[in-house]
């Protein structure tokens, strides 16, 4: 139906309501960022701007180690999740019976985080016992394969992030015309050349968005990381454990602020890039063309 007869006030009210909802959701986050820049911390009557709490985060060896592990986890997860999500999305486009694939890939989203984390924990403990048994019996160096640590945490995070990455890539891929791949093949390209030179450049925004989303998810994840990480800490597990054990310190607010600002910046950058690209395409499309 045409929008010609919709009152402009209806649209304005819609935007107002949406802004109010977003503000309500974001206000605790914005407030904690506000506190993180106060020299006197939470609840103080005075407000003096400082970046000292952020500096303190970077002077703390434990936090820096946690940051390092988190970055490593994010990288390892991205390296596996993104190509796998890409393959799943390509398989989805090719399959006739798509429902089963969607069901299988999205299933992890419908299991509560703590249930999923504890299930994986039990699974890896059992697997670890089996591998230790194999190592004892055969002398093969496989006993440590599934000890809780970086590998188990990465696997947990891959299972967690894959559905999200799949959906983001699939949305971008939905706009790709598969006949372009056939056209490239008809021009002499192998299947791999057609993908790399024709399809990938067009779905790249989706792949980048999925990568950014995966990194954010890994940085934000607590339940699975905490259950499967073994002997190291991640940024979020340190933050949560500080909150639970010693309460929110100014440093905690700074850590929370860093994570929130990073996530918001990534999303804002993707949005800005998308809008800029759309504006560029619109300008080009509007350029005069002959017959």
């Amino acid at each position, binding site marked *: 139906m045409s929008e010609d007869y919709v009152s402009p006030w209806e649209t304005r009210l819609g935007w107002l309501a949406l802004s109010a909802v977003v503000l309500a959701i974001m206000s605790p986050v914005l407030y904690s960022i506000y506190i993180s820049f106060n020299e006197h911390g939470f609840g103080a009557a005075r407000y003096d701007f400082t970046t000292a709490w952020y500096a303190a985060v970077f002077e703390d060896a434990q936090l820096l180690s946690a940051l390092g592990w988190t970055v490593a986890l994010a990288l390892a997860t991205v390296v596996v999740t993104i190509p796998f999500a890409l393959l799943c999305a390509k398989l989805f486009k090719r399959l006739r019976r798509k429902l089963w694939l969607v069901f299988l890939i999205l299933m992890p989203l419908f299991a509560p985080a703590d249930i999923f984390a504890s299930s994986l924990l039990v699974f890896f403990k059992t697997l670890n016992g089996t591998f230790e048994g194999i190592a004892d019996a055969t002398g093969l160096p496989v006993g440590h394969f599934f000890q809780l640590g970086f590998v188990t945490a990465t696997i947990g995070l891959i299972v967690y992030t894959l559905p999200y990455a799949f959906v983001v890539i699939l949305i971008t891929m939905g706009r790709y015309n598969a006949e372009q791949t056939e056209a490239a093949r008809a021009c*002499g390209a192998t299947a791999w050349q057609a993908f790399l030179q024709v399809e990938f450049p067009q779905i790249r925004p989706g792949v980048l968005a999925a990568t950014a989303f995966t990194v954010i998810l890994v940085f934000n994840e607590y339940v699975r990381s905490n259950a499967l990480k073994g002997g190291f800490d991640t940024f979020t597990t340190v933050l949560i454990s500080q909150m639970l054990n010693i309460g929110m310190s100014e440093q905690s607010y700074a850590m929370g602020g860093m994570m929130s600002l990073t996530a918001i910046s990534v999303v804002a950058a993707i949005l800005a890039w998308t809008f800029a690209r759309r504006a560029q395409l619109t300008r080009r499309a509007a350029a005069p*063309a002959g017959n």
Partner: protein
Amino acid sequence: MTLAPDLDAPADTAAVSVRGLAKRYGPVRALDAVDLDIEAGSYFVLLGPSGGGKTTLLRALGGFIRPDAGTVRLAGREVQDLPPNRRPTGMVFQSYALFPHMSVLGNVAYGLKLRRLSAEEARARAEAVLARVGLDGYGERRVWELSGGQQQRVQLARALALEPRILLLDEPLAALDAKLRKEMCYELKHLQEQVGITFVHVTHNQEEAMTVADRIALISDGRLVESGAPKEIYERPRRRFTAEFVGERNLFDGRVAAVEDGIAAIETPGGPALAPAEGAAPGAEAAISVRSERLTLSREPRPGAALRAEWRERVYLGLVAQHIVALPDGRELSIRIAPGGPEDAGWSAGELCHVGWDPADARLHLD
């Protein structure tokens, strides 16, 4: 030098030779034991209704569909197991399928670069082909800046730049408006005559097929119904399906009542319908078809085949006027006559009329 792969076959070999080609999609038989030969250097059209299997056949030639059975020989070489990039074919798609992240020149030079031509040589060849399709100076444009007709030309240039032995065109003009489609038909025909390679063109549009084709094959229900020169297909269709699908023909189904002096008669409620017997014997199930422009309309019966009918309506179509009449059983016939003549005017609904034709203009179909 030619750039298409696998080109060691002699030039006089049939460009396309298909034997027993079959393809099923579950219970649907998309191709059913199709045999087809296409002469090298000809413009060949696969014509048929949607879902008839013509695009499946074209895609099997291009290597985009693996047949369940049968062989495909292109330029003398068996290729049914080869991927598209190893066949001597180029392809033009209905949806254009241009690469939007490349310029016009980038699109045309894409395959040339894959063939490892130097950047300068690829550019020179791409520009030459663009000029040939009327897009000289468009190389630096983005593809979305072009109109539909221009995009189709870029696609043609991209395919022709590789100098394939056979160019496959899948409903190439379907997305264009009627006027542009007509212009592009002539351009395609002239282009094919200039480059001299084999064009295999899929369409459901008869006019398009008639305009461009040296030969036409009708495909329906996964089968090759009939093939021949456009005039043959239009004027002397062998099969009932062809008579019904191509142009506007009036059909009379029934049993051959009698054969006399080589003329067979099928009884209709308005009288006997006559056509050359073509070897049919009395009692045979058959159909007679007559083109609507071969029928005459009169108030009095004329010599030859003549049926009594009731006049219903007239539709002015510009070059011709179409008259609709009904036989006594209600079956309608269409007659096309020149507007303004004595037979065209003065009719009123329900009036008795006579429809006639020269039996030599009719066709008897035994299938």
